[in-house]
């Protein structure tokens, strides 16, 4: 048990900001075990109480936050990786010259279009022609 005078000294040092962590602990412990009606007593008990509530609260939030941020990080990482991977995969054969791309596209469309037309005249096996067939017949 500390003497009143020692507490007075410590308090004086405390308000000057000169106490060490150990001395502050002593002060807090003292006011916890000797709840008085003085302002200091209220103050130190308030600090103790505040400390415990803050701790519990932050514990709950941080756990949830960790999940959300982990989920977000993984999602962003995977999407980015997939995008980069996809791009890298597509790149090697991509035509950069618009003129060449134009020619290639024209040829490809003509090839497909030509077959679509031939398909109507030639012997053909049709397994599924539904709407596409109707459209083509309307057209020709």
């Amino acid at each position: 048990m500390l003497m009143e005078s020692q507490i007075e000294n410590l308090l004086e040092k405390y308000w000057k900001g000169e106490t060490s962590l150990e001395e502050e602990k002593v002060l807090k412990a003292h006011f916890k075990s000797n709840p008085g009606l003085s302002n200091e007593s209220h103050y130190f008990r308030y600090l103790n109480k505040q400390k415990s509530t803050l701790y519990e609260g932050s514990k709950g939030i941080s756990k949830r936050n960790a999940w959300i941020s982990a989920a977000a990080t993984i999602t962003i990482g995977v999407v980015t990786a997939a995008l980069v991977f996809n791009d890298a995969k597509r790149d090697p054969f991509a035509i950069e010259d618009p003129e060449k791309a134009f020619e290639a596209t024209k040829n490809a469309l003509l090839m497909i279009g030509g077959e679509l037309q031939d398909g109507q005249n030639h012997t053909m096996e049709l397994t599924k022609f539904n709407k596409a067939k109707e459209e083509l017949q309307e057209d020709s």
Partner: protein
Amino acid sequence: MKKLVFVITLLSITSLAFGQQVVTKYMDKYEGDETFTKVSVSSKMFSLFSEMEGSEEDEQLFYDITSKLKGMKVVASEKVSNPKALFEGAISDVNKAGFEELMTVKDAEENVKISIREKGGVIEELIMVAGGKEKFAMVSIYGEIDLKQISKLASLMRVNQLKYLENLDEAID
């Protein structure tokens, strides 16, 4: 939460990888093979086409078709050692990828099969596989595909070619 993350991850991967995966597979397979021509045109290129000049009907139609496309890929070779096996393999890969056969054209020279993948009445992807005596070709277009327009484009261009030939004949006469 774990499940949600898993589902989101899975969805993002599948949706990104789905378009033109069959052709991409063949492009990768013959990446180092010089006898195979591999071509890829991106949606960015298609948007550039619309800035080119064009007033003829077939040109307008061409821009209209390409503006709705997201990509085009071609893998082709003029000289393959086993065209039949390659053709059969490609057809089976296309079927496995969930495509429905639209039409088959067979003649003495070549086999052509066109397959499509539809979603909500819209054709999202079209793959044409062609196999000849020594030739093999796989063409895929991806985006919003209107068969009617593509067929019309081919007929318009054929007519133009004929006109050109007629004019040429007249010029010679």
